[in-house]
């Protein structure tokens, strides 16, 4: 098995490969969630796995999100490695207690006697008219929870490598899959490989300004960087990849180098990832900064249904370009 053979795959296919490899390699791995078995999941991520591994290990559940996460955690307490699917991230409210009060605290409050080695995959993000309960960016809901790990890939290759790393890790991991990326194609190495957790990637090196982004916003930032390149502005784009705990070293080193920072996150600005990154950069790089940090984020409203309204709420390339221009002006 060689990890050097690279093929073009969609984000969904890359995730499917990671699950397939995990199920084949480790008998302790199993999947559970709503309509993930014969149907293959709402977005097709588990397609074909039920037929290959059977109903015991690719397990359909009722609409019981709390029981899904509880089952995952309980089975991890005795050594299994569950991968739970919560169909839409918006439904995490139904199992918030299970994740925050149980999974995230278990290793700590029981003094290391149990590990909640679970992966919770979920589809997040807006842009397709999903409306208020099928479109949210939920990382902020979990950002303030010690013990929780939040992973958020932006490319098919990272989707596979990070999912494999997450399944093999002993911590409770919320694995965010942005719906707008599911059909994205990219080069994906064949076979088993892992992408390190808590390690950001420099998606595009540059020297004038740092843009720190996650998931879909990485692509918006890359598009903004290409546009500004024609004006001679050299943008460095950092793909955070793991949101909690995050790779502050890579972020801060970049800002120390460029002296200017934009943070781009789809969720509302108040209390979110953009706020956290901005605060840490301001604290740690104050003397290196040539301009105040700019946050590019969603507007402070629920996600509306009509695409005209939704487009108005969510940040994109245009807002990232404006943000970069504003830190360059100062």
């Amino acid at each position: 098995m060689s990890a050097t053979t690279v093929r073009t795959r969609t984000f969904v296919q890359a995730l499917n490969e990671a699950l397939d490899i995990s199920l084949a390699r480790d008998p302790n791995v199993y999947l559970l969630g709503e309509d993930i078995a014969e149907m293959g999941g709402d977005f097709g991520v588990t397609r074909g796995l039920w037929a290959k591994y059977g109903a015991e290990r690719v397990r359909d559940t009722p609409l019981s999100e709390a029981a899904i996460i509880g089952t995952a955690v309980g089975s991890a307490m005795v050594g299994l490695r569950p991968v739970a699917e919560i169909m839409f991230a918006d439904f995490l409210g139904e199992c918030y207690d299970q994740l925050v009060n149980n999974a995230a605290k278990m290793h700590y409050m029981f003094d290391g006697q149990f590990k909640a080695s679970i992966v919770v995959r979920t589809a997040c993000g807006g842009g397709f008219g999903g409306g208020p309960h099928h479109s949210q960016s939920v990382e902020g809901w979990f950002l303030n929870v010690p013990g929780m790990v939040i992973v958020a890939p932006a490319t098919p290759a990272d989707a596979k490598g990070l999912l494999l790393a997450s399944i093999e890790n002993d911590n409770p991991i919320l694995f965010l899959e942005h719906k707008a990326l599911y059909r994205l194609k990219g080069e994906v190495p064949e076979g088993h490989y892992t992408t390190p957790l808590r390690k950001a990637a420099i998606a595009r090196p540059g020297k004038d300004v740092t843009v720190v982004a996650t998931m879909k916003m990485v692509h918006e930032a890359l598009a903004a960087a290409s546009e500004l390149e024609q004006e001679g502005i050299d943008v460095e784009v950092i793909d955070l990849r793991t949101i909690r705990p995050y790779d502050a070293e890579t972020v801060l080193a970049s800002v120390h180098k460029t002296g200017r920072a934009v943070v781009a996150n789809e969720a509302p600005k108040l209390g979110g990832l953009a706020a956290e990154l901005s605060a840490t950069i301001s604290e740690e790089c104050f003397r290196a900064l040539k301009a105040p940090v700019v946050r590019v984020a969603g507007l402070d409203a629920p996600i509306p249904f009509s695409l005209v309204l939704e487009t108005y709420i969510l940040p994109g390339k245009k807002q990232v370009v404006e943000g970069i221009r504003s830190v360059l002006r100062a």
Partner: protein
Amino acid sequence: MALDIETLVDLYRDMWLIRAFEFGLEREFKKGNVPGMLHTGVGQEATQAALAAHLKATDCFFPDHRCHGINALAQEKHQGDGERIMAELFGRATGVCSGKGGSLHSANPRVGNFGDNAVEGSYMATVLGVALAWQMRKQPNVACCIIGDGTVGRGEFHESLNMAAIWKLPVLYACVNNGYAISMPVGKGHASADIVDLARGYGMPCVQVDGNEIELAYAEVARAVDSIRAGNGPYFLEFKTWRWQGLFSGEFRPAEEVRYWKEDRDPIRLARQKIGAQSSLQAADLDRIEAEVVQQIETWIDFAKNSPMPDPAKATADVYVGGEELR
């Protein structure tokens, strides 16, 4: 079906251990030696002793809010160091969770104690996963989840019973119905004051037991555990009982109700009468058992008091497995 006298005396001793533990703890709590909150299981000793008697160290139980007794019993029975439960409640480094868990988060998987969760009913979801793992591995273990009547109001109650039923999981639901969820009477808080009525729709055996009669509780737990080990799926037991502890502000229940349960229905007194009627043991023999247990608990309290406090530097340890680097 009468129990043999040796088993009955053992259970009597176990019940006294629970009561002495709680009384000693309450005394120390009032002196300010025990931090946090205190929910005692006095009055509910028979259900805890019956469960502890039948669950093996290789089974598991998720303890309820009034769980010090079964935690201590399991710790003492399987590992011989019940004092570490006491030390945990005192927040000491020698506690089963090194002081990080306390009264509502004491755990020790080596004795089957999978930890309480102070959010009532949360572990009703967790127990499913333990049971599922054992079912997948074909291990004939019992995953027991001890809940109060108040827990029935939680959504997890229904999610859990439903999923245990459709997957035929080896779960023992032990509902300790002590009549009140803090101040809410069970008949006012739920559509039925008999919790078995609410559980029956999920199609598992549902049995209501007099939770203050140790012989009955012991026999019903045995039947349930045997059925689960035989692969028959989940089983629901409701123990009708009553808690002696009132509210933090004092007693709120009618005086006659209090008198009835404390004098006529005290599980320890009932067991004592039974032993007296069925054996040649004299009151003095039973008094001696009681005195021995009380003495044992005092040594546990001394152990806890004399144990070191945790190192404050450990307050940030073990947040992540493998540390912040997630290794």
